[in-house]
């Protein structure tokens, strides 16, 4: 990829990649590492992108794979993901982010791709390589859990309610 195209792609999509990495990693340092690695791969790839959307989906897939890889790196000591250092800091005055990041990953990722990145359930199914029905179930369940968590947070203060174990 030529440098000019790469720089444009980086400016256009780095935030997207970082947000998705944050969803998966729940750790700002890992999310930064993953984001860096994704764009290095983009720079080195020989893939010819059919258009901007093709590039976006490529970035999302590489980001998700890189997140998985970072958890299974040979040198990583076995430890519960809940002990990962430094969770993402919530934006000041906003309760939604900790509620989202407290959801099981499969739900929070589906919600993010739907509500923030604007993908349809079928498109999400293709990205995540799961059936569309699975995506719809995750969206429904994720919305319900997020709603509960937000409503509880509103009532109790800033602490997000426990929804279900992180998976």
């Amino acid at each position, binding site marked *: 990829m030529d440098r000019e195209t790469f720089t444009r792609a980086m400016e256009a999509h780095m935030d997207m990649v*970082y*947000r998705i990495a944050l969803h998966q990693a729940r750790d700002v340092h890992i999310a*930064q590492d993953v984001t860096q690695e994704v764009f290095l791969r983009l720079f080195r790839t020989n893939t010819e992108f059919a258009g901007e959307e093709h590039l976006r989906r490529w970035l999302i897939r590489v980001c998700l794979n890189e997140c998985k890889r970072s958890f299974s790196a040979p*040198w990583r000591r076995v430890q519960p993901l809940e002990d990962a250092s430094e969770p993402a800091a919530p934006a000041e005055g906003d309760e939604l982010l900790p509620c989202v990041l407290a959801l099981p990953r499969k739900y929070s990722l589906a919600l993010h791709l739907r509500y923030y990145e604007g993908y349809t359930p079928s498109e999400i199914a293709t990205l995540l390589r799961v059936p569309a029905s699975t995506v719809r179930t995750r969206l429904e369940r994720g919305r319900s859990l997020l709603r509960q968590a937000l409503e509880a947070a509103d009532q109790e203060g800033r602490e997000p309610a426990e929804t279900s174990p992180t998976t």
Partner: protein
Amino acid sequence: MKRYDEQELIARYSEAFDRIHAPERVRRAVLEETQEEGQARVHRFSRRAVVLLAAALVLTLGVTAYAVGGVYHWADGVTIEESSGENGGVHLRIEAGEQDIAEPVELRNGSLFLTANGQDLDISDKLSQEEPYYYSFTVSQNGEEIFYCVAVGLNGPEITDYAYVVCRGRVNGSWMNYTTGGPGTPSIPLTSGTHSMDELISPWQQEVIQKVQDEYLAKDGN
């Protein structure tokens, strides 16, 4: 209690995530590394504690196809810029930060453990000052076969004098990098300056690196 409908959820979601941006230093790191395409080697670690550069140092091998030179970034704040120094030495410019390095070898209750490839091995009885202990494996990462070799040896009579070198490279030999560490590794002051290769890694570690390059990694076209 407020009830959220779908439109409200979407609105709040957008508002929250609009505020999240990739840190500027991630952009800078990517731009710097891509400027030296193929030269920079990056090791990133995501734990928190004090960095001991004498304990783990990332270098490219200054022989054959691997030229000295590059910028190495740790996860947060630590940068090592390597260039050819005076009289054939290696010049390092170091900006230390506050990040830990995940080491594959650890002393626990007097025994030395190697943690790699999903294994947690007590290698206390396998160490000597004469010959390092080798542990190697290959993993598939993003469609590539990556070879790892850990060699652990003793630079003194005590188990606390252990040192290691980790070599990692694509199986076809198109690239390789390595990390050294352990309390027995030669230590350098955490200051910028020119250092000889012998100051930075023990002769046996240099031999391991050469051995992995020559014997374990096939060269492109072979």
